[in-house]
């Protein structure tokens, strides 16, 4: 995943959670997902459009999201993704896990900074 701001490892490890969270409240199509990511991530969370599709298809295969073709009265045929009940559960679990993880990392970093300040 080509990121302009965060390392690709960091983006990769959080992609599933980010996409599931985006789709939790709204159904979106591919390009819309990319735009929303860039918007909500303050432009820092970006990855190449081409890398989005394998991730979406994988989440669909896992049964966490479902895809549906929509043809608006005016406009192009679009494949719209939404969260399944299973995906909702996975999102909740992963979000909690992520919160615990970041709290833990932050605590370590703060402690290290504190010790560095003392010395």
């Amino acid at each position: 995943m080509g990121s302009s701001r965060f390392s690709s490892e960091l983006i990769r490890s959080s992609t599933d959670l980010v996409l599931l969270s985006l789709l939790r409240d709204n159904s979106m199509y591919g390009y819309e997902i990319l735009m929303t990511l860039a918007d909500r991530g303050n432009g820092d969370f970006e990855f190449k459009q081409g890398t989005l599709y394998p991730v979406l298809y994988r989440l669909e295969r896992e049964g966490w999201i479902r895809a549906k073709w929509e043809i608006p009265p005016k406009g192009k045929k679009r494949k719209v993704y939404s969260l399944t009940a299973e995906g909702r559960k996975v999102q909740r679990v992963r979000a909690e896990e992520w919160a615990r993880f970041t709290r833990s990392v932050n605590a370590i970093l703060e402690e290290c900074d504190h010790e560095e300040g003392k010395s």
Partner: protein
Amino acid sequence: MKKENRERIEGFLDEMEESLSGSRRQKEDIRTEIESDLLDRIAAEMDAGDSEKDAVDLALQEMGSPHEIAHGIDGVVAPASSSRIETLRRLVSVGVLLWAIYLCLNVRPWSYGAEGAATLAAVLLFHVPVIIFAWPGIIWRKNWLFGLIPAGLAIGIAMGVGMMGVASNAEIVIPMTDDPGAIVEASAPASDGSMPRWGQWLLFGGILCSFLVILGAMQQSQQRRWVFGLTSLFFLGVESAYQWEELRFRQDWKEIREFAEGYRDRRGGFPNKEALLSGGPPLHNDSFLFSDGTDGYSLFWNRPLSGGFALVADSRERSIRVQD
């Protein structure tokens, strides 16, 4: 859009489509989706002030290599065949499913007790993987090693649990019968140092279990729940019906024994057929009681769930057997 820009987009999409495996319909769907998003991106860049050429350049650059996209998608999308092959696979799955159900219902009455349950489980363990494999889209490419670890555990647990409480060869009862039509299933002792029969069954069941675990690891969790849930329900449904039937047979046999033993204590010999039928306990089933009035008696009990099969117990034998 200018012709040259349109051609570049088409060229990109053609290249990606050619690199994709899967059915024609799958490829078309993927192409339509990516094309739609690509055109949205180009339109957005042009709205932001880019020229058409720059917008196309940027959009294609952001997409990356068409081969890499195709490779990435191929790795996660279940390979699909043509609709004709898919229909054929569905028919094969349904055929195997119906055959498995038929086999289960016809094999189970041939055995008794835990052995009947083991036979039923073996039939299911053998057929369920075939059904999972044949139905299109259930099994898809994933890291096989991911499933090998639980599979190894499964085989170990299956062997370990199976060996717990197994009687030694010296204690195994071998039912005897003179009737060649009688179906007697018993654990034969290993006389030549080879693996005993129960060991072979354990190994067989363990291998099938581990194979099923591998397949389960390659399924969506929802599909896995459906497959294992329905299989377990079917197993429990059939097995509990037969266990209930066999429980009633044991109850009848117990009552007959109590009556016959009491009769012998009072009169010095077992009751004859007439005495058993007239003075014996009421039975759950249209049973046949046999007694020559001297050294023993037996109970033939037609299996209500399976016509043509009877459970047989004899006071001179140490086991219950099934007779065709």
